[in-house]
């Protein structure tokens, strides 16, 4: 009878399949792939402070500050690490017991810890971690920055850890910024700036249960799987940030407007694996093993990342001992204006575009920060020595469709060697 059933099944539904000869483009509409390096101060202040950003951060937020503040700044190197979804882990005694065991070298704790972490990621999009490495130089009106950023996105189209997939993204960016101060008086000043980022972006097709099972069960070699059998999308764009800043009352009150990520359309290609992507730059850079799946032709596609229109106000009275700064930003105003005509628009939605922040600096060395990002709180602190800074921030942000759907917390630590006062 067993054979009969099998035979029936074969006869009824056996068929042939045509293999695609091109590597299909993989796009994730839920993920915003716009490039921006980690800005710990900005995050701690509720993702606000467009009008009072530091010189080096201005390259990536408001390039007019580059002209507004003038002077010299250098980042010999900065390194930052951001970890997401910390609170759920820290609250879970079992997870932390596994974490402690892992730190002490008990490798068996890795799987239950990782499983717990993945469970906490939930449905929809999320982030696991973000790592940044950067150098930069600002001389007068010109600024240069080089950044490498690795992001680990998570996307779950289902509801359990079984459908969770991890999407690594790598950005390599070279930035050139120009800022000019056209008008400079005690009453009024006017600055404008522009920065152009040459960004090469690559992201993997989601690494999910299928691949992990293959690797764990020994059916596939992890290195081969990731290098030669996990499709990667790679491409470039030249996004542009533009900003204008008006300074009032000896520049203690500043008002800025920025348009960020203009021209954020990436020309992308699909590759059958990261190894093939590397070899597309330099043929033979990595030797292709014989027993890997055959390379497919690339598919060209465009990856659109959204541009934003933002406004910022900052008040920084000249009190040298505590150096207070209060900021308020109206973010993504174009989307807000577009939503005016929708039936679903409510006046309270205006608040969802309002980020607030504050900073106090003790003798210009110790900084304490707090902010509100779309209603979610953030805090942070920094130690700013003449040639080194350490900044940390912790805060929440909304990753869901609606407010309250999926608040996610993030902890960032950033170490900078350089001068940017």
């Amino acid at each position, binding site marked *: 009878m067993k054979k009969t059933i099998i035979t029936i099944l074969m006869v009824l539904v056996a068929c042939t399949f045509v293999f695609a000869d091109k590597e299909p483009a993989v796009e994730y509409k839920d993920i915003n792939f716009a490039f921006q390096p980690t800005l710990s101060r900005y995050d701690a202040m509720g993702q606000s402070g467009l009008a009072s950003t530091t010189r080096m951060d201005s390259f990536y937020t408001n390039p007019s500050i580059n002209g507004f503040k003038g002077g010299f700044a250098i980042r010999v190197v900065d390194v930052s690490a951001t970890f997401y979804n910390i*609170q759920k882990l820290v609250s879970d005694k079992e997870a932390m017991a596994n974490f402690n065991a892992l730190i002490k070298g008990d490798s068996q704790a890795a799987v239950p810890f990782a499983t717990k972490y993945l469970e906490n990621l939930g449905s929809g999009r999320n982030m696991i971690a973000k790592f940044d490495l950067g150098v930069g130089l600002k001389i007068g009106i010109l600024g240069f920055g080089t950044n490498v950023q690795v992001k680990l996105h998570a996307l779950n189209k289902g509801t359990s850890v079984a459908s969770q997939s991890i999407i690594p993204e790598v950005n390599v960016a070279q930035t050139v910024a120009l800022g000019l101060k056209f008008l400079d008086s005690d009453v009024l000043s006017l600055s404008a700036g522009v920065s152009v980022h040459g960004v090469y972006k690559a992201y993997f097709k989601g690494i999910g249960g299928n691949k992990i099972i293959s690797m764990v069960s020994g059916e596939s070699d992890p290195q081969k799987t990731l290098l030669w059998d996990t499709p990667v999308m790679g491409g470039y764009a030249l996004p542009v940030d533009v900003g204008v800043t008006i300074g009032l009352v000896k520049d203690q009150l500043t008002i800025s407007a920025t348009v960020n990520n203009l021209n954020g359309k990436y020309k992308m290609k699909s590759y059958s694996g990261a190894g093939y992507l590397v070899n597309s730059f330099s043929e033979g850079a990595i030797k292709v093993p014989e027993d890997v799946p055959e390379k497919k032709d690339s598919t060209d596609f465009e990856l659109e990342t959204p541009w934003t229109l933002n406004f910022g106000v900052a008040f920084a009275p000249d009190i040298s001992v505590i150096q207070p700064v209060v900021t308020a930003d109206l973010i993504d105003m174009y989307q807000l204006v577009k939503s005016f005509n929708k039936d679903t628009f409510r006046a309270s939605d205006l608040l969802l575009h309002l980020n607030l922040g504050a900073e106090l600096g003790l003798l210009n060395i110790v900084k304490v920060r707090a902010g509100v990002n779309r209603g979610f709180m953030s805090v942070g602190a920094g130690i700013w020595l003449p040639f080194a800074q350490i900044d940390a921030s912790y805060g929440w942000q909304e990753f869901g469709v609606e407010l309250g759907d999926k608040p996610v917390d993030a902890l960032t630590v950033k170490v900078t060697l350089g001068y940017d006062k």
Partner: protein
Amino acid sequence: MKKILFGLLVVALLLCVTACSEDQYAKLGELMGKMSGNVYGIKPNMQDVDAANEKVEDTVKTDKSGKVTVEIKSEDAKAIVDSVIAVQDSTTKTEALQESLNEPIIKDATPEQKTALRDGLKEQAEDCRIDTSGYTGARLEIAKAVNQAIDAVADGISADPTKGELATVAVLKTLADAVVGGVEYADAGLAAVSALKITTDVGKIDVFANADISALIGKLTGKDIARDDDDPGIKDYLPIMSKSATEVIKCITNSEKKFDEAKYARFILECNAIKASYEMIARSYDISFTERLDKQTINGKGLVIEELGRYVIAAVFTELDRISKAGEAIWKSIDPTAPVNNLMTFIGTYVDANYDNLTDLADNYDKLDDPTKVSSESYPALQSAVAALAFGIGDDPTAIGYDFSRLLDSFKKALKDSGSLQPTAIAAFQVTGVILLDSEYTSLLSLGDMDGTLAGLLKKISE
């Protein structure tokens, strides 16, 4: 220099997090959690939820005399499905809609109105039946599955119908319309599944939630990648099964922890609708049973692996109930010694006797290793419940686990011998293949000694 900086950063982070005891972590976590609230106090915009409710309510009319009529036209059914799906990306909206769909269609309805609603919905469901004359092949099979679901739904409408039941009838109407219209089955099936995940309790069951995936993979591959203190064996599977068992039990019991016939009827109604929807999706594709599944391609629709668990629950209960209702003789004809003939009676007796143990199983299963952790009175019941969930590992003929084991043996025998179950088995494997392929979980078929094909899976199951 960069390496040193990065190393310092990692060390600093580790020092921060390892300097605390687990209790201190918990307090820190509590503090961090207090920051998670939204200080603006803005409530999510629920207009989509209101719109979905209105679409459901618009199909019910009450005249001046209080007489109630129900009419779900094709366009109404589609509008209901579309409006329900519109909220699916938002957890907050989905939960709000689910809550409102659990309410009766008319609050505080009179007995006459309740009867009119039940009869009206039953009539609307029956009107969806597809005339299969002239149908052949996949269209005939899917029409039969939809008709089977329609019959079950018509039979299962409760005495005081909820908005969710009306929405489920609307979903089935969209399926029937798709079959009659010959439109793209996969799209209609996917829309139906998306809506049913919100409108039904069965749709919310997630077999893989809280599953100990690492233990499961270790078990399936024969490689112990779990911790040493995780005793391999049936316990590896219990966190998966017990959670789902609890959810199923809650679907069919009332607030007094007793089996509820009306809720059971609704449960079966929902299982039928879900099963038909998945089979409609799968009928759009040809899956080779003998070729490795990872070598095949289909035009992916974004199914996820959780769908498999949901489908299996829906299919198993649908078929068990169907062959149970088709005539008590079925069980007896296959296995004259079968302990129970009527599924509902069996489940009712079983659940009433074991409610607490079954619903607490996820928390209690680890106590099985040490009887001293459980009172002497409740230990045998807990053991039986575990045995039952473990598909009859008990040898004691007086234990209910033994009965359950024989019930399953009967079902397996029926699968092999009953002609009526073979089309179901084919459909089930078709759905399994499509879900594994679409969710990119084909490597499950290569675990252990399986060969990556559906035929290999069937062989494994037959063994």
